[in-house]
């Protein structure tokens, strides 16, 4: 982390960049928040540890409009989002200085809570360079957890340790993937329609329309969301128009289909714990199955599957009922 801070200070000092985007300490040891850093003293609060899961690429939409270059810390998976934003002309690459930061998997405090860890005072063992167990100092005494057991689900299906776009890389990354990315989707596909319906209804019933998923999503970068404009009569806020209320998540998933890099931020930020990535990942799986493998953000030149076609594409009637025995 110190190397990263030193380098950022250096970049600011020599005028390469005029500001940097990273994470600063939050009110709890497990909730650092994205922040701008412009002066050396700003870095007193700088933090980069296992809880810095936030994908900062979306912040670059606004940051690269500002005068002068902005440095941004991107983890390997975040760079896919950044590439996708370049493809959509949403960020100005010339105004960005990308520091690829090392990553050994990001952590999910909910997993600690589920393991019965409460009253956390401080946490150690989450440093980016470190290894070994995570140690919680709680008001009930010390608790430890294996780093891997504390990892976000998305890190178990990690896209890899390579940054797909960067100006320089600081720190080592580790491959943390040890699960099949589409296993969850497949499990749902195997259910009966009734079970699937019940599953999604019970999950979506938790939604409070806080819009956190939309606001964090790097693909949901429209200047004005379709749910906020008047073009579809879908603009009212939650509870007013049942159309939006019922269909919000399906429409949102469709809007980002072919553009979603599967960064998993939607599920991470959902205060209700809805596994929203299951929608996006279903589209990704279908796109892979129907039109050949495609990873949004991998190649900024690649044509999105939804703005492309072949003469022999699958007919919609063959897209359904594939699981029926």
């Amino acid at each position, binding site marked *: 982390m110190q190397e990263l801070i030193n380098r950022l200070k250096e970049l600011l000092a020599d005028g390469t960049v005029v500001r940097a985007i990273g994470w600063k300490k939050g009110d709890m040891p497990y909730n650092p928040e994205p922040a701008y850093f412009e002066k050396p003293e700003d870095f007193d609060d700088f933090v980069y540890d296992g809880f810095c899961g936030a994908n900062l690429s979306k912040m670059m939409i606004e940051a690269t*409009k500002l005068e002068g270059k902005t440095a941004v810390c991107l983890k390997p998976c975040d760079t896919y989002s950044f590439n996708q934003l370049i493809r*959509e*002309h*949403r960020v100005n690459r010339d105004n960005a200085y990308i520091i690829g930061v090392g990553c050994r998997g990001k952590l999910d405090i909910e997993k600690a809570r589920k393991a019965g860890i409460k009253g956390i005072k401080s946490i150690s063992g989450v440093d980016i360079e470190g290894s070994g167990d995570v140690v919680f100092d709680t008001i009930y005494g010390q608790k430890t957890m294996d780093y891997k057991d504390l990892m976000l689900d998305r890190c178990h299906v990690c896209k890899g340790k390579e940054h797909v776009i960067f100006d320089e890389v600081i720190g080592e990354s580790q491959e943390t993937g040890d699960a099949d990315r589409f296993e969850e989707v497949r499990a749902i596909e195997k259910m009966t329609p009734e079970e699937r319906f019940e599953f999604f209804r019970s999950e979506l019933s938790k939604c409070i329309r806080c819009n956190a998923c939309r606001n964090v999503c790097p693909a949901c*970068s*429209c*200047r*004005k*969301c*379709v749910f906020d*404009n*008047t*073009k*579809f*009569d879908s603009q009212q806020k939650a509870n007013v128009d049942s159309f939006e209320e019922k269909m919000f998540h399906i429409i949102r998933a469709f*809007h*980002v289909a072919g*553009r979603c890099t599967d960064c998993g931020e939607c599920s991470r930020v959902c205060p209700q714990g809805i596994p929203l990535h299951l929608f996006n990942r279903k589209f990704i799986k279908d796109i892979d199955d129907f039109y050949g493998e495609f990873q949004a953000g991998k190649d900024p030149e690649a*044509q*999105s599957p*939804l*703005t*492309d076609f072949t003469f022999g594409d699958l007919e919609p009637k063959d897209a359904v009922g594939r699981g029926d025995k």
Partner: protein
Amino acid sequence: MQRIGVFVCHCGTNIAATVDVKKVVEMVRYEQGVVFADDYMYMCSEAGQEKIIEAIKEYKLTGLVICSCSPRMHEKTFRACAEKAGLNPYMVEVANIREQCSWIHKDKEEATKKAVILARAAIAKVNLNTPLKEGESPVTKRALVIGGGIAGIQTALDIADAGYEVDIVEKEPSIGGRMSQFDKTFPTLDCASCILTPKMVEVNQHPNITLYTYSEVEKVSGYVGNFDVGIRKKARSVDFDKCTGCGECMTKCPLGKIGHIPSEFDRGLKNRPAIYMPFAQAVPAVPVIDRENCTYFKTGKCGVCAKICPSKAVDYEQQDEIVTVKYGAIVVATGFDIINLDKFGEYAYNESPDVITSIELERLMNAAGPTGGHLERMSDHKQPKDIVFIQCVGSRCDNEEKGKPYCSKVCCMYTAKHAMLIKDHWPDTNITVFYIDVRTPGKNFDEFYRRAVEQYHVNYIKGQVGKVMPQPDGSLLVQAADLLDGKQIKMKADMVVLAAAIEPNPGVRKIATMLTASIDNNNFLTEAHAKLRPVESPTAGIFLSGMAQGPKDIPETVSQAGAAAVKVVGLLAKDKLKTNPCTAQCDTLLCNGCSTCANVCPYGAITYEDIQVNDHGLRETRRVAQVNLALCQGCGACTSACPSGAMDLQGFSNRQITTEVDAICR
């Protein structure tokens, strides 16, 4: 708030027999915006239209809903009627209660209910209609033809004869194209240059035609009626105005004898000097210097041509020049070439000089060709006694690496032609043709081919040749199968002629990209409609002529050239183009500038510009989509691709369709 009039037509009993028209009128009277509702026996009749006009005036209607037959039938009628009464024609919607209701339902109650729902949907839509105005764009009355072969020549002549100015851009030093290389033409066997040369001369002398030879299209911008085209006139190194075409320079160029520069025109069967005209009847009759091979340009020495030129026309200092010209329409007539045969090692084309392509044979049989029209083997200059023709070399070949999946269409006919011409000159030549299928659709075509078999006794054998093996004695051993007799054949030949697949001129992809004209996997330009608009590109203002669109023979090319010319003339005859008002529109405040819409637009109508926007007080420069209304055809592909909803289609807007859905599902 709209003031809508609803008019329900009986259509005699066509509607009224199954739909309770009076009830429909009563049911829709209190719909939102409706201020007037009535029914009439025949709404489309004079009297019916009069009724509509009166109602518009009396009730100050701002929108009309006509419940009648299909809009495909009478939408135009009712729009014109509205316009007569001073109402914008696009404020009219038609509810189809005949084809999609009364004619297919029997139960009167059910049909009436459906008619009411269809009327409600139309009323809901009209509530959101806005007056639309057809746009206008001026037309530059000049056409560009890219390619100076027979397709381009004929198109240019037809346009020029209709009284419009045409420019031809040809990348070679002379116009004439492939046809000028041919000896005779099927099925009449008249000599190609005898029928082509007069046309070339006519082009050269036509007051409405400007020739840009040795030139290439460099840049295209604009849209239908208003193209700006940058043409690169490559340095000819010969002053056009001074040169008399005497040809002295060509005969004196030292490289003519020792240069080993293969003549492109003679397909490498002969050498040419560094200062050259491709062929004797070249138009224009002004040579060019091939700077890559010319000794003067390579070493600074020589300069013979400049010294001997009686009119001092040779100019080594000439530079490429780029001219920009405005056009209203562009015709692509870039023609074809034959495929490279490197991948067909089995036919020994690269091994034996006696295995030749059909175009080479054309040159060998041409009186103006490298052998003066005497058919001889390139290896020993002896006259061949046994000649084998192999059809479909690379045609109908699914292996992309080697050939082309399509039928080249002309090979069957020219092979029959070659066989007969050879037999005419040298009757004791034995000719065998190996074919997969003989395809001769066309007037007098099959008769032509049968003549080769029945009168000239050309031996046609069904079966592709497997291998051609050059023998130590200089002959060629051909191994094939006679599929009809179920026998394998090994025969000796003195010469093997390959009917190589044709392919579009390789440069056409670059041109198509510049024109945003769509092109298929085989590099043939795509038609706007394969059946109904075969000489137009989907991109407005771009037309197709000749082989650039697909394999075709000379008569077909000439007819297509004429058809393209008519389309061009039809466009140029207009002073202004009316544009379809149902076009896409970008809400610049919502546009992300993500380019998704441009990716799906089939017309290249969407471009991006950085503009200053004032978004509720926030001023910034944004990259936003711009729809060129002259190009947009109103398909709406962009609107469903747009993630933010910034793209919308006038006349079929998101809200209009949504509200129709709501009305139907109410």
